[in-house]
């Protein structure tokens, strides 16, 4: 297997061909915030938190969706990147309605975590309080769109891992919303197998089990990768 050698913040690291810059950053022991990325799902490069700078070109590339190349010099923590990341997190908080105090995911929320990681102690951008829906029509699960950050993990896990493609994104721009079926109540969509993968993949408290209340949401965000390995490499958890 061929190997690419590159540097991450000056640290030399070797990754197998086909690895992403995110793999390389992790191999170098550096940390990058991510939100839309989830191991085991196709990367989309949408949240822009894992942007890194390629030294020389000055170009910013999403680490999750960029192939690692021989000789690349990757910078992950320039002051500029840190400033941009913080602004991106502020934009996420401002565009939805995120009230950690009574959220099911309080304490187990990736949005809350990245806010800490980027040092966001308040949002300089006014909160928008958009009119969004809550759909509790499913017998076991519910979605509160106020907490949705449009990472599309639910869309991808349902399509790529479960194969049901219950979810998709509707509309565009700030009107974007996650939908089930033909924008029907989730509970009425026959294609849903109630497998709960979307609950596990959701980084926030947007999709949750109905019997969980404040700060009770537990997730298994490692499962998509485990399932993919089992399916494609015939490697099961017990092996």
């Amino acid at each position, binding site marked *: 297997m061929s190997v690419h050698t590159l540097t991450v913040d000056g640290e030399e690291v070797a990754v197998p061909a086909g690895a992403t810059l995110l793999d390389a950053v992790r191999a170098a022991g550096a940390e990058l915030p991510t939100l839309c990325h989830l191991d085991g799902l196709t990367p*989309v490069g*949408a949240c*822009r938190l894992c942007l890194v700078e390629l030294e020389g070109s000055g170009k910013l590339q999403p680490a999750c969706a960029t192939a690692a190349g021989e000789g690349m010099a990757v910078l992950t923590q320039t002051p500029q990147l840190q400033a*941009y990341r913080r602004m*991106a997190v502020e*934009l996420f908080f401002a565009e939805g309605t995120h009230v950690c105090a009574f959220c099911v995911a309080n304490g187990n929320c990736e949005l809350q975590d990245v806010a800490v990681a980027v040092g966001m102690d308040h949002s300089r951008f006014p909160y928008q309080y958009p009119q969004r829906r809550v759909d509790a029509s499913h017998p076991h699960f519910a979605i509160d769109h106020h907490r949705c*950050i449009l990472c599309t993990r639910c869309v991808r896990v349902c399509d790529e891992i479960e194969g049901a493609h219950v979810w998709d994104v509707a509309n565009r721009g*700030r009107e974007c919303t996650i939908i089930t079926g033909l924008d029907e109540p989730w509970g009425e969509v026959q294609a849903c197998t109630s497998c709960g993968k979307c609950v596990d993949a959701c980084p926030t408290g947007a999709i949750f089990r109905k019997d969980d209340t404040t700060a009770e949401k537990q997730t298994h965000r490692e499962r998509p990768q485990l399932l993919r390995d089992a399916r494609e490499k015939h490697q099961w958890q017990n092996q």
Partner: protein
Amino acid sequence: MQLRCCGASGCRSAGAEALRTALLSARDQLGGAAEAVSIKSVGCLRLCGRGPLVALDRPEPSGAEPACRTELYAELRPEQAADLLARATGRGDALAAQRLDSDHPFFALQKSVVLEGCGVVDPESIDDALSHGTYAQLRRVLLDVSPEQVREQVKRSGLRGRGGAGYPTGLKWDTVALQPPGPRYVVCNADEGDPGAFMDRSVLESDPHRLIEGLAIAAYAVGADQGFVYVRAEYPLAVERLRLALRQARSKGLLGAGIAGSGFHLRLEVRVGAGAYVCGEETALLASIQGQRGTPRPRPPFPAQAGLWGAPTLINNVETLASIPVILRQGGDWYAAIGTEGSKGTKVFALSGAVQRTGLVEVPMGTTLRTVVQTIGGGVPGGEGPDGGVKAVQTGGPSGGCIPAHLLDTPVDYESLRALGSMMGSGGLVVMGDSTSMPEVARHFMRFSVNESCGKCVPCRAGTVQLAQMLDRFVERRASLVDLERLEELCRMVGATSLCGLGQAAPNPVLSTLRYFRQEYQAACRDPVQCEPLDACLLKEGTR
């Protein structure tokens, strides 16, 4: 004698169809000499703001040079049909007041390369196109020229992508052609969405066969046997004429299997957009052709490496492809001799806004903005002073910027415009007069971007919304100096971190107006003394 009636949508909306009908029936009624007048429907005659336009070709007495004189008439009404026919047959001159001066710089300074068939050929007749030499270059290259030689000519021409970014066309063709063997596609991007741009629409409506020829040559040069023309649905006439032209080309054996007796096959299809500006972005366009949401994806891989269905795909814009037949006919060196060192050939501009003469203008690259806006366009109606009342010229649509009047002597080329914080864009030039408020212009474009953002990445989806709201504060004159600082900060962030060109360029109209008209933003910040309580303290210092 021949009357060429513009039938492109600008003149159509001004009543060109009724005029043509009136001309036909007047000819029948008049009979006699009028019967010898042929009435031909053609494409754009350039001065769109004064349609409907008709060109009258009158043969001169034998021996005279030139053998034929052309007169152009503007703003014709159906009831003037008989007068026009009378003039055509040499009787009377009732329409002298509506005759345009063809020596006027608006016409005299134009150089038709891309538009050489516009207003000349009948866009609905392949026979007419053939008689004007269309498809001759396709036939020639298929039989006598290798794909490498074709690409060589395109490289020699120095042609750069006319969609806005200005990537060298020949290099792009090479990249696609030199991918590992396998299927590949060609795509014509006719999703002309920049507000203020109508160059591509005019080519599609006026001379569709030239585009098909250019696209077919491109397919041959890169080894593609399938292609798509992606046209925006807002251009129904263009879609209709393009579809007709494709049917005609297929029936003449100029598309399909074994074109013109060669071994080259090409299947071309039209795909119609459905109202999404972002589909002008290459990767979004490819998603849309495949029937998906028009959301862009990170590059690399570039479409030239992995495009439609994962195959190498060449994407060129209408004007780029329409230049190809001429380049092959005259040679790359001929084309390279036009224009400037870095930007060769001609460029078509759509001139509109606060300007006397609006319409389609093709000039050599390097022509100054002043020539285009003041000499050709005539400046702002009623405008005075050395800059003719021009306050700024907007180029590049929502991705571009506003160039102030004092920089009108800038030559129009890719690098000069970029250096001014604007860009060539697809070619829309919107002139703004003294009364235009620049924060309002910036907000206009930001609202456009809010509307057209696909919503995939957060800087564009949420950042443009915040920027538009900040601009509201300036337009409504309730901003603060903190807002000004934050506006610039967020502009830089959205520009640097957005996923595709739409978001990356969305702050440009703000940044360029901040650069040249900062005082208007500052004037919109309230004087601390006059502030209402909610804003008062914000003026004192930053919150961080």
